């Protein structure tokens, strides 16, 4: 099956010049907020190193920490479930909901706070097909849920939309006035709408930012307080986490809470950093621990560091390609640079263009709060795509030909001379033909000089 690749989707995105400008500037503003929050902290680079090393240690001892976490969570009265993949995860969540909510005459009602893992598992679709009502309660998530779109950013799910777009969506779904675009009025409409959903919910589902092995507790970070509202009102709390969310103890948590919000949005800390340890009497708490390809990535020496990711989204905000192609152009749950190194692990064929959706500028690696060598991994995935025979044939054979020429000096000299000669003789309309030469769509070719440097050197210095 042929999927539209990143270049096609990015080209479509760029057709709207003004909107691309707006998207780029909006995310660059977030990057600048991050800089303002980071520069005044003298130990920020040391914190990054520490965070990276804690994750290195944890990933190397993941089996032990996961078991320690499970044992402590069970002692706290939490029910722990293990899911090997998305199918198992979705099945487990559905069964918890159906078992704990047996009301006649209506569907069980689930409220969710943001969880990229459940996006990855396509949980919403699955639950809705199984007659469970699902409401995303993060404002951005609710907007894209209304629109039947995936999030375009992991921290700012509706960042691809302008307030006018949100106004249109709320006019259709929440009955706000046609053409209303005042952010305060729109947000108030969403608040009133969501209050009703919170009060009526049977089950609340949250993600997990950090799971602490030593205590068996977990931490959920939000700015809207929607996780807390959902969890405290519903009878059942389900928390879904990937296996890489584990950290050893609470001291380590303090490193990450200092890094996460500063890197994500430039805040010193998220508005809500909520610790969950045990269920309130008479209520249930479940944790679903999910692999879904993570152990496979852990087994890839060159790529295991990608599992250190704390999902701050800073690599998206800083990426000059992401800012000018939009999250949907990646066609993967996690877009941007980090998505481009996670996605080939899941489906190399489908996502083969993503490691190439980068100039390898390295800004992502320098901004990453846990020092993932993202641009190095992009380069390495490119080699795997090449070896797996997933490159377009013209490129593959072109590269082989070029490599041959460049390993034979005389052939190189002659080819260069001929090419420059041709460029000088051929009419501009032909050398700059836009269907044959993508370079020429927006750029002039350099002038082809009569003499190469080598020819000049032979004439003037030897």
């Amino acid at each position, binding site marked *: 099956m042929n999927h539209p690749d990143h270049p096609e989707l990015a080209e479509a995105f760029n057709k709207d010049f003004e909107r691309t400008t707006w998207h780029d500037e909006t995310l660059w503003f977030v990057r600048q907020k991050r800089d303002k929050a980071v520069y005044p902290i003298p130990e920020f680079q040391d914190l990054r190193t520490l965070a990276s090393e804690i994750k290195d240690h944890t990933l190397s001892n993941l089996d032990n920490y996961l078991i320690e976490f499970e044992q402590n969570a069970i002692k706290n009265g939490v029910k722990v479930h293990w899911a090997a993949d998305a199918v198992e995860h979705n099945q487990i969540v559905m069964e918890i909901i159906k078992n704990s909510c047996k009301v006649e005459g209506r569907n069980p009602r689930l409220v969710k706070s943001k969880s990229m893992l459940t996006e990855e598992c396509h949980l919403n679709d699955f639950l809705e097909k199984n007659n469970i009502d699902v409401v995303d309660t993060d404002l951005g998530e609710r907007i894209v849920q209304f629109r039947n779109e995936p999030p375009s950013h992991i921290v700012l799910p509706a960042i691809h939309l302008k307030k006018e777009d949100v106004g249109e969506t709320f006019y259709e779904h929440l009955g706000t006035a046609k053409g209303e675009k005042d952010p305060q009025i729109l947000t108030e409409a969403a608040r009133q709408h969501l209050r009703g959903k919170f009060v009526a919910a049977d089950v609340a589902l949250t993600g997990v930012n950090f799971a602490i092995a030593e205590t068996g507790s977990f931490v959920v970070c939000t700015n809207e307080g929607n996780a807390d509202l959902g969890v405290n009102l519903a009878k059942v709390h389900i928390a879904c986490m990937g296996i890489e969310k584990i950290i050893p103890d609470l001291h380590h948590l303090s490193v990450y809470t200092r890094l996460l919000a500063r890197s994500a949005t430039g805040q010193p800390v998220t508005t809500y950093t909520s610790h969950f340890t045990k269920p309130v009497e008479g209520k249930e708490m479940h944790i679903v621990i999910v692999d879904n390809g993570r152990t496979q990535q852990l087994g890839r020496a060159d790529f295991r560091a990608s599992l250190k990711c704390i999902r701050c989204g800073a690599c998206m905000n800083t990426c000059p390609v992401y800012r000018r*192609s939009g999250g949907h152009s990646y066609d993967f749950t996690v877009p941007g640079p980090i998505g481009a190194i996670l996605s080939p692990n899941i489906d190399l064929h489908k996502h083969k263009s993503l490691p190439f959706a980068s100039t390898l500028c390295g*800004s992502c690696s320098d901004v990453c709060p846990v020092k993932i060598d993202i641009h190095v991994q992009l380069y390495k995935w490119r080699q795997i795509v*090449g070896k797996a025979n997933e490159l377009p044939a013209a490129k593959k054979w072109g590269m082989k030909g070029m490599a041959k020429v460049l390993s034979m000096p005389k052939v190189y000299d002659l080819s260069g001379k001929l090419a420059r000669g041709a460029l000088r003789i051929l009419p501009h309309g032909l050398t700059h033909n836009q269907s044959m030469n993508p370079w020429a769509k927006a750029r002039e070719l350099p002038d082809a000089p009569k003499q190469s440097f080598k020819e000049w*050197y032979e004439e003037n210095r030897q």
Partner: protein
Amino acid sequence: MKVALFIPCYVDQFYPNVGVATLQLLEKLGVDVVFPIKQTCCGQPMANGGCEQDSKGVYEHFVATFSEFDYIVTPSGSCTYHIKKHYDIIEQTPAVQKVRKSIYELVDFIENVLKIEEIPNSFPHKVGLHLSCHGQRGLRQANASEITGVRDGQISKLLRKLKGIELSELNRNDECCGFGGMFCVTEEAVSARMGQDRIADHLCNGTKVLTGGDVSCLMHLEGIVKRQNAPIKVMHIAEILNGNQP
């Protein structure tokens, strides 16, 4: 001190003047420099395209051409970075290790090997410096805005000391230009847009001469300048330091 000049393939073919300026500059600085005539390319274009295995022959040719020298100097941070970083897939013979250690980007060589901190030339123009990513973040030749708010680096240090020069303060000091090797054609739309945005930043901050350490970035940016008929002259840093005028 045996010093070799490496002129990257696209500079050799399309920007011989940058090669000439680099050679003349090194000669003026008292370096006895030779240009090994059998050189071609560092192999980066294929490797970045996902075909590093195909590049092995080019790597071996490069090592054979340059391993007898104490220093290899090149007007390209990108090729330098590639040789240092990615020549790890061929057998690490003493020759390979030596080449990876002795390759230097031109300005790095001037400041850190020759220990020259000032070139007594005059360049009375408003200059915009494009920081090429491989030199800046790859070789750490300049501070990165992700890490510090202090804007400083090897090229700007030398530029600032030229008489009469004024440097543009850019809105985005170190955003990538969008060249990216094969990226410039495989992701044409994003690549072109990134370049256009860089040029717009330079134009609104008064750049009259645009310079940088990598001809590849400059070739892409010059392509946009020419298409837009923008009032900017593009020169490589070697040309400016050599005393060439726009």
